[in-house]
């Protein structure tokens, strides 16, 4: 006699967003200046348009979430802020991407200096196969910092900021970065970026390979980091975007499969009263 187990119907839980006046005031007080602005940015892979005409501004000391379905070009767009698209053969970027008003697409811009100021955390944690210490010291060392005391100090503060210090302080030099758990590895990657003293941190789905507990730790960390850094995060997880970000930008794909920006606004409004039908369909789970 087969037993039938009744599973509950899947429920689309409403996404909780705080839209309190206090939250809006806190955001306004935290951030005044524009850190990054893009003007009609299009990204092409050969002939194929991957992203079309995206213009938006990102406030200093804020978290901007880029959401949207797969293939809407949000990761590709993120990678033009530190010019990682340069590494992809055949990729070209049109338009302007300004960091503190300076166009980073200019040919005489040093990508090395740009990437020091605009750090990046990848989807899959990718610590180097070196000790925890050497992972964090990697960026500073490449910039000629070899003073042992200063490195010790830098590694400690970076790991503390990334909320990893207490877990690893006893075997900094003995343990490989790869011997850590997935969530710890991702925090190590964040510490590694913090050690280069960046102004902007790009995060490309930083928690998608992590378990829920590690994900929450990363989110907590992001909320602490936004006091000092400008953060841009690409995420597939709308709850995550709603929980951590100040501003949300919704991307989707046009009929020719080029990604474009549908709308951008305070996260509270995007998730409760979006202006566009496409946004509403996406966040309510009717599309994507």
């Amino acid at each position: 006699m087969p037993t039938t187990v009744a599973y509950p119907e899947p429920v689309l839980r409403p996404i909780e967003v705080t839209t309190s006046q206090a939250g809006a005031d806190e955001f306004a007080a935290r951030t005044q200046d524009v850190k990054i602005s893009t003007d009609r940015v299009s990204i092409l892979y050969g002939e194929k348009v991957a992203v079309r005409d995206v213009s938006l501004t990102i406030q200093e000391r804020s978290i901007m979430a880029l959401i949207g379905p797969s293939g809407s070009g949000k990761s590709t767009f993120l990678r033009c802020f530190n010019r990682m698209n340069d590494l992809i053969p055949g990729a070209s970027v049109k338009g302007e991407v300004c960091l503190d008003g300076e166009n980073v697409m200019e040919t005489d811009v040093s990508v090395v200096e740009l990437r020091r100021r605009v750090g990046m955390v990848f989807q899959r944690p990718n610590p180097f196969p070196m000790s925890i210490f050497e992972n964090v010291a990697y960026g500073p060392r490449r910039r000629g910092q070899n003073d042992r005391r200063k490195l010790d100090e830098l590694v400690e503060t970076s790991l503390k900021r990334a909320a990893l210090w207490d877990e690893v302080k006893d075997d900094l030099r003995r343990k490989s970065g790869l011997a850590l758990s997935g969530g710890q590895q991702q925090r190590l990657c964040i510490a590694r970026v913090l050690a280069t003293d960046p102004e902007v941190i790009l995060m490309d789905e930083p928690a998608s390979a992590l378990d829920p507990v590690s994900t929450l730790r990363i989110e907590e960390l992001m909320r602490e980091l936004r006091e000092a850094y400008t953060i841009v995060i690409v995420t597939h997880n709308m709850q995550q975007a709603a929980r951590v970000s100040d501003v949300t930008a919704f991307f989707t794909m046009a009929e020719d499969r080029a990604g474009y920006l549908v709308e951008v606004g305070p996260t509270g409004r995007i998730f409760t009263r979006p202006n566009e039908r496409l946004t509403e369909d996406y966040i309510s789970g009717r599309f994507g």
Partner: protein
Amino acid sequence: MTASNPAVGRPAGPKPSLRRRGSRGSILADHAATVALWGTGVLVLVILGAIILHFALAAWGVVSPSFILGDPSRTTLGGVLPILWNSIYILVLTMLIAVPLGILAGIYMSEYAGDNIATTAIRFAEESISSVPSIVVGLFGLILFVDDFHWGFSALGGSLALTFFNLPLMTRLAEQALRAVPQEERSASLALGATKWQTIRHVVLPLAIPGLITGVILTAGRVFGEAAVLLFTSGVGTPQHYNFLNFDLTSVASPWSPFRPATTLSVYIWNLNSEGLGAFKTQIIDGSAAILIAIVLIFNLGARFIGRVLTRRLTAA
């Protein structure tokens, strides 16, 4: 709640048993593949074992301290040290030239060159040179170094001819070792503001060490084993007494000079076997072969060991 979508449900009927594991044919093929693959793996070990065993037995009683260190002679048993020295000398000299060049060329092919006419031509050249018979490379060395450069037979000429022969292999193996390093590692380093060269130097090369060591071992193996190239370039002769305290690099009598003729073990074995007349010919051949095998094994194990130490030092993990 029961399944209500008829398109998703299984058709009614007897449940398949877990004990039925596919058709007879597929099970047989699976077993056959296991046996064949396992068997070929064992075969490789057996061949190596057989070679080592044969020469170990043949050389039993021949190889002794006096066989190596005794007075060099063709007619008595012993004194292969000068020949052994030449083999190691030419190996080191060749590796000093070929390994750095091969790694640099490999870095260029893997990290800098795109896919274009130049790299296609380089790859074609790599494959062609590697398949040119070594006797032809030897002839080329003879014309170039011995005749045109008026060096006569010399260790340096032999090493350079061997480099011609080995550089393509070293380059290809270095390129493959570097390409095998995951792209994510490069991205991580570049995103931290490291330059391209810093990324290669501090991330890509350390991670490629095991593959590079394989390249060094395979290249070195060809140096030890090569007789045809050296026959025409570094020469064939009888073992002569070397004075290791003679450091005059311009003197052809100094064992340290790259401009002296240098008969290596492989060439010596070939020469004895084809022309040798002495009473102890067979014993000397067997003993020399055993020594050659022992050196190759020591070199390979040593290279692996150094590779492991280097990896640990450079990646600190």
